[in-house]
Every structure is written in C-alpha cells, then in structure tokens.
C-alpha cells in the first residue's frame, strides 16, 4: 500500500512517500524534509510533488494519506491538515489523522526501551507540548501543554528513561529518536487502520489551547 505522509506540527515541514507492506515496518520510498522552516505553506506542496517524483509515483497512485494532527503551533499545523484533507478529497483517497507526538514516539521506540519515555515539542510562549509513552511507544498520558518546569515536576509521577522531540532536552533525560515526526513514524502509527481499511474519522487538530480572545469590557470613554 502506497501512503503519502505529511506533518507540519513543528518547525519542520515533512512530506514522504511510504510503502506499507502487508506485514512489517513501513518503508520510506522518498521524502522531503525542511528543518527550521517558517514557510510551511510555501514548502509543503512542492515537497509533496518532489517526494512523489523521486519515488516515481503520481499523486493519483497514492492509496491513503496520513497527516499529523499536532499538537503544534496552530498556523503551521493547519497547513498540513488542510493540504491532506484537500488532497484526499480531490483524489478520493482516505485521510487518516494521527497525533504527531505518537509518530515521534513510535520511531524512538523502534527497539523496545527499558521503561517509559516522553515526547516534548515547542509550544512557544515558554511552554511545551508533551505526552508520555510506554516502552513500545504507545501513549499513556497527554498530549498536554505546560511550562517546562511543570513537565519536569510531572516526571516524578511518570518515571521515564528517555525523551524525544525538538524540546526533549528540557527534561534532562537522555535524548533519543527523531526531533520531529517523520514519514515512517506517521505511517507506523496508522498501520493497523490502514491495513484493516477502516474508514478514517473526521480530522481533528490537537490545539490544546483556546484562541486568544477577550470579550470587550465596558466601553472606554473618549471625552475627559
């Protein structure tokens, strides 16, 4: 099964063409990854087409699309999600959303760890998004959005042997795995539903924060 995998939930823009065999791990045929990107909207679609070209496939050959649903800074996150949704609609291809942290954890736990781990990414505003996983990369807690110091306190109640993700260093734990979600991890998280041919549910972004907006208070007077 040929799967297009996208993620724009972090500062990295990722697009990959992945083969999902009937059993075993996904195999990345081609990928385009831009780290430290600010222009998610400009980079993503060219990345998709370049990855397809390198893999020698056309968009219409894709059997399914997998996209990271965050958590992540909202503006960038939406680029990947709406791209996946529109591509799926235009091609008549199912679109599966997966938690972006799960994709990082699944790659980080490719070989079983000796204990739990956490994934930590940048939430800006001096906070991080984080989620906790078991030794095989299955989520136990989160995702949450909190200050790094609060996360460190929480680790007392969630003893972990390692951390992954672009902000993993804030935990003080050994850093493992990819800093951002990769095509193999994204497809691995969705592998069971992809193979079963399960209809994907609606795509729901993991914002974790309400929009910044305040209801207006009493009117300010203009006259003295």
């Amino acid at each position, binding site marked *: 099964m040929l799967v297009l995998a996208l993620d724009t939930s972090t500062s990295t823009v990722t697009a990959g063409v992945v083969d999902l065999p009937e059993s075993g791990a996904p195999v990345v045929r081609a990928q385009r990854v831009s780290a430290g990107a600010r222009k998610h909207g400009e980079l993503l*679609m060219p990345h998709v087409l370049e990855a397809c070209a390198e893999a020698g496939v056309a968009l219409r050959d894709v059997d399914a699309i997998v996209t990271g649903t965050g958590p992540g800074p*909202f503006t960038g996150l939406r*680029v990947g999600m709406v791209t996946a949704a529109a591509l799926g609609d*235009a091609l008549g291809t199912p679109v599966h959303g997966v938690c972006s942290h799960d994709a990082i954890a699944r790659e980080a736990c490719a070989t079983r760890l000796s204990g739990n781990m956490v994934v930590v990414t940048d939430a800006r505003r001096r906070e991080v998004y984080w989620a906790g996983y078991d030794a095989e990369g299955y989520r136990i807690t989160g995702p949450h959005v909190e200050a790094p110091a609060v996360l460190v306190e929480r680790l007392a109640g969630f003893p972990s042997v390692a951390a992954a993700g672009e902000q993993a260093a804030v935990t003080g734990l050994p850093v493992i795995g990819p800093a951002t979600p990769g095509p193999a991890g994204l497809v691995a998280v969705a592998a069971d539903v992809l193979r079963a041919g399960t209809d994907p549910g609606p795509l729901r972004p993991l914002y974790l924060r309400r929009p910044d907006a305040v209801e207006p208070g009493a009117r300010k007077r203009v*006259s003295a």
Partner: protein
Amino acid sequence: MTSGLVLGIETSCDETGVGIVRVDADGTTTLLANEISSSVEEHARFGGVVPEVASRAHLQAMVPAVHRAMTTAGITARDVDAVAVTAGPGLSGALLVGVAAAKAYAAAWDVPLYGVNHLAAHVAVDTLQNGPLPPALALLVSGGHSSLLSVPDLAGPVTPLGATIDDAAGEAFDKVARLLGLPFPGGPHIDRVARDGDPSAVAFPRGLTGPRDAPFDFSFSGLKTAVARHVEALERAGTPVPVADVAASFQEAVVDVLTAKAVRAAREHGMDVLCLGGGVAANSRLRALAQDRCDAAGLVLRVPRPVLCTDNGAMVAALGAHLLARDAAPSPLALPADSSLPVTEVLVG
C-alpha cells in the same frame, strides 16, 4: 480565448467561500455556485473578527464547502480547468488555509493555480451580474478595506488612488454600532435603524475633505470619536440617546465622503463607470446616494447584489476565469499567502 470552469477559494477573513464560474470562448462569465460558510456568529461576542477563531473555522469548513459548490454546480473533478485562490491581502493565518487547500486541489487535479488579489476579485465579481466591465473606477468598502482603485482592465494592473489612513469604513460601522448598543457586525444594524432616523440630526465631521487633504484618501477614526463624544455628552446630561438619528447621521457622514470622493476620482481619471464592492456596498444608503451622484455626474453605477459584495468564492473564481480566458501564466505551487499583498499585484506570479 480559453473557455473553462474555474473553482475559486476565499478565506481572507471570516467567510470560507467557494465559487464556481464558467467562462465561455467569447469571454462571458457565468456563476454556477457560490457556497459560503461564515464564522461571523463565533466572533460576535468579541465585537470583531478574532483571527484564530476564523482560521479554525476555515480548516473545518474548507473541504465541505468545495463539496457543496461542486454539487450545486453539478460538476465533477474532471470538469475543473483551473483553481483560483485569494493570496492576499487579509488575515495571514486565514489566507494560509485557503491557499494550502487551493494548491492541493490544483496539484491533485493537475490544473493551473491562480493566486489572486482579494481587492481585484471584489471588482471582477461585478461581471457575473452586469457583464463585461469597461475601464472603471472602483470603490471597495468593507470591514477590512476602504479603497479607490482605477481598473482599466480586470486582468491588468490596478492603480490605487486612495485608501483609508486609519479605520476601514466597515470597522467604523462596527464601532459605532457598539456605541449605540447594536450587535456585531454593525453595518446591517446601522442601515436598519438609520431608516427611521434623520440623517441631518447631527452634523458629524467629514474626514479628509479639506482643500489640502489627500483628495482620495479616507479617514473614519475622527468620525467614530465624534460619535462617541456625542453619545457620552447625552448620557452625562441624562438625555436618552436618539439611536436612529445618531445612526442615520453617522451613516450619512460615511457615505457622503465615500461617494463624493469616488465620483470625483472617476471624473478626474476619465472613467465613465463607477463600480462598488465590499460588504459596506450592501448598505442601502450608500447604494442610493451613489446612484444619485452618478446620475448627476453622468456616470454609470455598477453594484453587484449584496451576496456578491461581501467576501465570497465567486469573486475569486470570476477573476480566475478572466485570467484563464487570457491564458495567464499560473502561480507556482510555492505561492505564499501575503497578508499585505499590494493591490497592484492582481495575479501573484
């Protein structure tokens, strides 16, 4: 000329719009669908559009709106010959959703992508109702823009003659509505209550109309403050605020300046046609006064029906149709969303 079907996507503010327009070999454009999903009710309690709320709503509404538009038009994916999208100006996070979606549809269907200017699209929409547009002077007024544009040709360069130096006209309507205890968005409510009011009850100032002021720029901030002072003075005196009179007098001050400057600009630039667009162009008093003044000046007034004046996808598809008809070079798939796209850039290359 190339004929075909264009799907247009608009997400520059709080409306998720998808329109479908057919352009025939003779250049005639026909509207086939105009689906709008608005998040305006989610913004009402904040008294203005909240960008993040709008962006979230666009993400949810985008694909369903495309579906509905295609169903309404009775077409399938194979029938679409180009995808057009508002590339700017507008709210950056909101624009980004539409631009990303448009790229995906264009790439998946393997058709040209046109990233177009929102203001030029407001002018182009008129052709759907009133046919080919001769060289025209356009007055675009909404919650986001107040501009006078010289438009010799829809697909060609547009020359900005003037714009607001502070608040947009629609913004002034929203703020004054709030002063008068009327709901958001203010435009339709002011229009409604002003019908029972006396437009000459209060002599509110006409901004930037002095002999040394920029002839085609607008300013509504001073007017808004004058209304606030007037209301506060009445409140201090314990006098009930005559809402209808204040609304009518405020509205008159806005549309007086808008129409006077538009007619003058048309004359000075040798244009025989004045075209109105934007949400405020749905205002009944603006339409009436513009008609009177155009008649007096010997100008032809063209105003699209209200649903085409407010932000929508049909206007983007209409501009895209004119570009397709002339085989314009498509935008690249690296097309950026540009929140401050200059109006001189009709098509982002």
